[in-house]
C-alpha cells in the first residue's frame, strides 16, 4: 500500500458545506426544535436535576461567559491550539513537501508518518507527561502530535500530484530547487494542505481537551471536567458548546478559504 492511498483516504476534501439550499430553513428549524424539546422533557422526566438541559444551559450562557475563570480557560486552550497548529503547519508542510518531491525522504518516513497517524493520539499522553511533566508543554506537544501527521500526509500527497508541465517549465527556466518547492509545489498543493489542516484542526482540539483532562491543567477541557464533577452540568455544557462551535468554525473557515482563494477547486467538487 502506498502513502497516496492513505492520503487520498485521509482527504475528505470533496465536501460542499451543508447548507444554503432554498427551503431548508423550516425543516431545519423544526428538527432543531424537536431535538431540543425532547431533550428538555426527557431530562426533566427521568434525570436528576443537575443534568444539563437546554433551558438551564441557555440560562447559564451569560453567567459562564462573564466568568473570568471561563475566559482564562478558553483563552489558554485556544492559544495552545493555535500555537500547536502553527508549529504543526510549518513542520508538516516542510516535511510533506520534501516527502512528496523526494523519493528517498518518502521511503524513509512513509511508514512512520502513517504509523503515527494511525496511532490513537491519546496513548502518547502518559509518555509525554513523563518527558515534559504535568505542564502546558505537554499539552502543546500533544496538540502538535495530534495535528502534524495529517498535514504531512496531505501535503505530501498534494506535492506528488503537481502537474508535470509546471515542473518542466520551472526546469527549463533553471529555477532553483527551493524556489520550485515553495514557488510551484507549495501553491499547487494548497487544496491538499487545507484538507489536511481541516483534519488537523479537529484533532488538535481533541488533543487539547484530552491533555487537559489527563494533566489537570487550566483550560476549556479542565473547566468542563471541573464543573461536571461539581455537578454544574449546565455550566460545563456551555464549554462543550463552545468547543463544538470552534470545531464547526474551523470547518467553515477551510471551506470559505477554499471557495474564496481556490474557486477552481470547487468546480471539481460539483462534478464529483
Amino acid at each position, binding site marked *: 500500500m502506498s502513502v497516496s492511498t492513505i492520503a487520498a483516504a485521509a482527504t475528505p476534501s470533496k465536501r460542499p458545506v451543508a447548507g444554503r439550499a432554498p427551503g431548508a430553513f423550516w425543516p431545519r428549524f423544526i428538527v432543531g426544535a424537536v431535538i431540543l424539546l425532547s431533550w428538555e422533557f426527557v431530562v426533566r422526566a427521568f434525570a436528576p436535576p443537575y443534568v444539563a438541559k437546554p433551558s438551564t444551559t441557555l440560562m447559564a450562557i451569560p453567567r459562564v461567559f462573564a466568568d473570568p475563570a471561563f475566559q482564562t480557560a478558553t483563552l489558554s486552550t485556544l492559544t495552545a491550539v493555535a500555537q500547536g497548529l502553527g508549529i504543526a503547519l510549518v513542520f508538516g508542510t516542510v516535511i510533506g513537501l520534501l516527502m512528496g518531491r523526494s523519493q528517498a525522504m518518502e*521511503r524513509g518516513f512513509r511508514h512512520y508518518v502513517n504509523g503515527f497517524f494511525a496511532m490513537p493520539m491519546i496513548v502518547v499522553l502518559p509518555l509525554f507527561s513523563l518527558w515534559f511533566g504535568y505542564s502546558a508543554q505537554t499539552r502543546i506537544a500533544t496538540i502538535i502530535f495530534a495535528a502534524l501527521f495529517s498535514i504531512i500526509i496531505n501535503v505530501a500527497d498534494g506535492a506528488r500530484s503537481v502537474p508535470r508541465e509546471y515542473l518542466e517549465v520551472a526546469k527549463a527556466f533553471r529555477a532553483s530547487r527551493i524556489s520550485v518547492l515553495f514557488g510551484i509545489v507549495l501553491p499547487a498543493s494548497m487544496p491538499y494542505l487545507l484538507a489536511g489542516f481541516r483534519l488537523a484542526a479537529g484533532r488538535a482540539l481533541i488533543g487539547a481537551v484530552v491533555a487537559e483532562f489527563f494533566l489537570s491543567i487550566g483550560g476549556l477541557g479542565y473547566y468542563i471536567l471541573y464543573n461536571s464533577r461539581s455537578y454544574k452540568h449546565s455550566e460545563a455544557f456551555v464549554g*462543550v458548546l463552545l468547543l463544538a462551535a470552534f470545531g464547526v468554525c474551523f470547518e467553515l473557515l477551510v471551506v470559505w478559504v477554499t471557495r474564496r482563494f481556490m474557486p477552481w477547486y470547487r468546480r471539481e467538487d460539483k462534478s464529483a
Partner: protein
Amino acid sequence: MLNTALRRHGPFWFSIFAGIAIWEIAGRSASQAFMVPFSTTIAQLWRLILSGEFIRQFLSSAELFLTGFTLALAVGMPLGMLLARARTLRVGLEPYIMILYATPMVALIPFILSMMGFGFAPKVLVVFLFAVFPVLYNTVEGARSIKPEMIEVAHSFRSTEWALWRDVMVPYTLPYTMTGVRQAIGRALVGMIAAEFFLSSTGLGQLIMTASQNFDTAGVFASVFVIALIGVGLMRLGLAIERHFARWRQ
C-alpha cells in the same frame, strides 16, 4: 526473483531497521526513566504476554471496541440510509449531524462519568459516540450525491420501492458509508482508549496507566508500541474495506 523482491521491499525494511536502530541508540543514551531502547521494550512486552496480563487486557479492550463499534454501525447505517430516502428529514437533520461530527466527543466524557458511573455501559457509549457520527455523516453525504434523475428514471419505470433501494440507493451510498466506517474505526479506537483512561480503568488503557503510575517506562513503551501496531492494523483493515466498496465509485 530475489532481486525484484529486494527492490520492492528493500526500502521498507531498511527504513524500519534504521528506525529501530535510532530508537535503540536513543534509548541507551537517555535516562531509563525517560526512554527505554527497543530491545527492552520488546523484552517487557514479551513478559506481559507470558504473564497472560496482555492477553486479558487485550480481550477486554476488544470487547469494548467491538460492542461500541457494532452499535455505531447498527444505528448509523440504517439511519443514514433512511435519511437518503427521506429528503425533508435529511435536509432538517444535516446541520446537526455536521455539528456533532465536528464536536470533539471527548468533551462529553465527564458528563457520562457523572451520570452513568464506572460500568461497562458508559464506556460502550463513549466508543459509540466517537464512531457513529462519521458513519452517519458520510452516509448522508452519499445520499446527497445521488442524482435526482436516477430516482426519477427509476420511478418512471415503475420501479418498486425495494428495487429502488437495491439498485440505486444502497449501491450509491455504500461507498460513502464505507469511508465513514474507515473513519469510525480510527475514532472508535481513540474513544476506546479515552474511555479506558477517564472512566473505569480497564484494558489496554489500564495497561498504560498502571505502567505510567509505577514509573515503569518500559511498560509504557511496550503498551504504546502495541497500541500503535493495533492502530496501523485497524487502519489498513479500514482502507481495505473502503477500497473494496469504492472500486467503481470513481
